[in-house]
């Protein structure tokens, strides 16, 4: 250290070289940390047990069960059933729940680190990526037999990739169009016969609400930087005859139908002014929340929107009536986005038989009924869906009906990147930065590069 030539004491001074060394190291750690093991900024609290696959060296075997999004409404279900499985098979169930935000990263980290769980739940759209890593165990032996026959055909097909089943359907969801009957009545629309069959019908109703004394926005439109913006928009896209990829898996996002669909989506905000303010700030959850609060005329939503409103009405939190109709049809038909979550066995598992037992255990019909009822997902098992609880319910009935035209997103190894680019195109059009044609052309070009 150089002699101190200032008034400050030696103890207070820091050598310049020391500081540079520290900065170099610190900066590198910070940067490397962001790339090396997975974004420290967002993975806090992922609940990853991190323990090995064999469950320790005790006499009791253990099976690791990783799932996502276990909230208060379903936590008890898992606690009770895991305990029942432990008693029945004399094993430990190492149950881990992570938030959806951290799910993909947690799964990848555990698979890459050789610490994969035995059984895990995830969206079917992740299957290609995990199959590419040889991370998944084919489950044709289960799905081609009696066990597989209990599922709806379309749902079972949703777990297939390259001709094999890489999971068991765990949960499914699709969407319908909700409308606020009180708002419709205020706007002079018939709440019992809302006539919302096509997009044009929806726009007409929205325009009438906009011009009425109803003090709420007519329609919820998602445009935020979130994966769900794509899932809200694809209804418009598909119903105009547009597609995302062709049979070879190459992008085809800028067809004339796609331009019409995106034009309609953006015109709802820019030209017709029938949406909530600033759709680019609104996630799907935001517009659902607005509708559930009674502050929106219409929204495309899941079954749990209705379940939430019903519960809120019973608690006296809200007081309005709502109706559910099918997602409007476009020139080329009607589609409802179908999402399937699967339960898979990991290739790294050393307890594959036990993992199969755990899956079979959770597909007991009564357990499936309890799960679907509490969680608010569509039943994946036919016998459960046929129960009157679902088929005769005001909330569930339209969604069961929507199953006939439900459509899943394509299974692509880089679907996340694909969807991000589509969301960017939607935002560019919604922000009036680019015309729908230009936004989709640019997206097509970028996606072609990305999928070369």
């Amino acid at each position, binding site marked *: 250290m*150089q002699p*101190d*030539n*200032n008034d*400050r004491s030696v103890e*207070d*001074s*820091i050598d*310049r070289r020391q*500081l*540079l060394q520290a*900065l*170099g190291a610190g*900066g*590198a*750690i*910070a*940067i*490397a*940390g*962001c*790339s*090396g093991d997975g*974004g*420290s*900024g*967002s993975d*806090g609290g992922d609940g990853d047990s991190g323990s090995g696959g064999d469950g320790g060296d005790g006499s009791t075997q253990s099976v690791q069960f990783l799932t996502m999004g276990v909230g208060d409404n379903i936590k008890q279900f898992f606690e009770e059933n895991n305990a029942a499985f432990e008693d029945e098979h004399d094993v430990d169930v190492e149950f881990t729940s992570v938030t959806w935000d951290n799910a*993909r*990263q947690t799964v990848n980290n555990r698979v890459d680190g050789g610490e994969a769980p035995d059984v895990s739940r995830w969206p079917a759209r992740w299957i*290609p*990526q*995990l199959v*590419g*890593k*040889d991370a998944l165990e084919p489950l044709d032996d289960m799905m081609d037999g009696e066990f597989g026959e209990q599922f709806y055909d379309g749902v079972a097909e949703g777990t297939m990739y390259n001709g094999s089943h890489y999971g068991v359907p765990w949960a499914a969801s699709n969407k319908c169009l909700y409308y606020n009957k009180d708002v419709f009545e205020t706007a002079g629309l018939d709440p019992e016969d809302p006539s919302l069959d096509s997009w044009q019908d929806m726009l007409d109703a929205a325009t009438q609400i906009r011009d009425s004394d109803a003090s709420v926005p007519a329609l919820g439109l998602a*445009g*935020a*930087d979130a994966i769900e913006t794509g899932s809200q928009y694809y209804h418009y896209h598909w119903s105009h005859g547009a597609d995302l990829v062709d049979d070879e898996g190459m992008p085809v996002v800028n067809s004339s139908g796609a331009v019409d669909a995106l034009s309609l989506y953006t015109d709802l905000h820019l030209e017709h002014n029938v949406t*909530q*303010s*600033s*759709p*680019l*700030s*609104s996630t799907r959850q*935001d517009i659902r*929340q607005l509708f559930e609060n009674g*502050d929106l005329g219409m929204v495309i939503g899941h079954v749990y929107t209705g379940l939430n409103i019903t519960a809120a009405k019973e608690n006296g939190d809200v007081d309005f009536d709502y109706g559910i109709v099918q997602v409007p049809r476009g020139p080329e038909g009607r589609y409802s986005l179908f999402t399937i979550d699967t339960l898979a066995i990991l290739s790294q598992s050393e307890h594959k038989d036990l993992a199969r037992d755990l899956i079979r255990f959770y597909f007991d019909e009564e357990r499936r009924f309890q799960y679907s009822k509490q969680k608010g997902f569509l039943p994946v098992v036919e016998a459960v869906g046929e129960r009157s609880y679902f088929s005769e319910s005001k909330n569930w009935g339209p969604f069961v009906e929507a199953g006939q035209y439900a459509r899943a997103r394509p299974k692509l*190894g*880089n679907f*996340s*990147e694909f969807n*991000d680019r589509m*969301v*960017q195109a939607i*935002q*560019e059009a919604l*922000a009036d*930065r680019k015309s729908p044609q230009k936004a989709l052309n640019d997206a097509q070009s970028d996606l072609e590069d990305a999928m070369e």
Partner: protein
Amino acid sequence: MSLAEEYTETSDDSRLERGLAYVQRNSRAYLLIAPAAVFLLAVVGYPIIETFRLSLYQSPADSNIETFVGLQHYVEIFNSDIFYRLLWQTGRWVVAGVAGKTLLGLLIAVHLKGDIRGRKFFRTAFLIPWGIPYAISAVVFRWIEHPQFGYLNAILLKLGIIEQGIGILGNPSIAWLGVVVADIWIGTPFMAIIFLAGLQSIPQELYEAAAIDGAEKWHQFRYITLPQLKSVVLIATLLSTIWTFVSFDVIWTMTGGGPISSTATLVIHIYQVGLQNGNLGRGAAYSVIGFLFLFVFAIIYLRIYTRGGDEL
């Protein structure tokens, strides 16, 4: 051998000998720091080397196969428009954030140094934002700025200033400002505390002498406080610059880098490319570039501020 060569050789030999003798004299000290040095090499050196190695490979997250591509990632990055847009957005984010935190921190510190009523309370209160996890603060600010549910719009609507909620975070032109405000709120307490410590180390006699000489408050601040605080400001802004540059939580939580990538910085893009989209090699290349930027920045920054022989 010429005299000069002889001299050089002798000089090298003696330098080596002197070095060896120095190590021998301090062998015990080297032995004592060896465990820490090995530990540092493992936890600091390995990630750096691994990140650089990864940047030379095509390394998709959905495959265990890596393909050596040399400097291809770097060439593609430097040839892409998005890189320069990210540089601009990162620079904007860092400059605005650090400037805001520095100025506010200095303002708060100067006032807290004075003998004001409730000084202890304010000193504690100003630390609270720094004690809250960044992600939580970011969530709070996201809600404050939300067009339908947020306090900010609710107040403006109530006052009749606006007719409908403004989506700050949904407007590609101003979303970055909405995020910077949150970052400034979070980071200001650190700056204020550091500056306060620096202010308290300035001898009071300097101010008394200046007052006797008739110096106004502003002149005292300009010619005593600021020069005396120079080294503290240097350290604080340098650290703040690095932290802001690599900051992830606030932007990701509030906007996810959107809308239309208008709030994305280099670090956000690294996460999106490397981890969300599974292009680990490209993400690593961006990381190396970011690291080099910070490293070069730190050197230049220190050279400018230590010009004239000052030592930190």
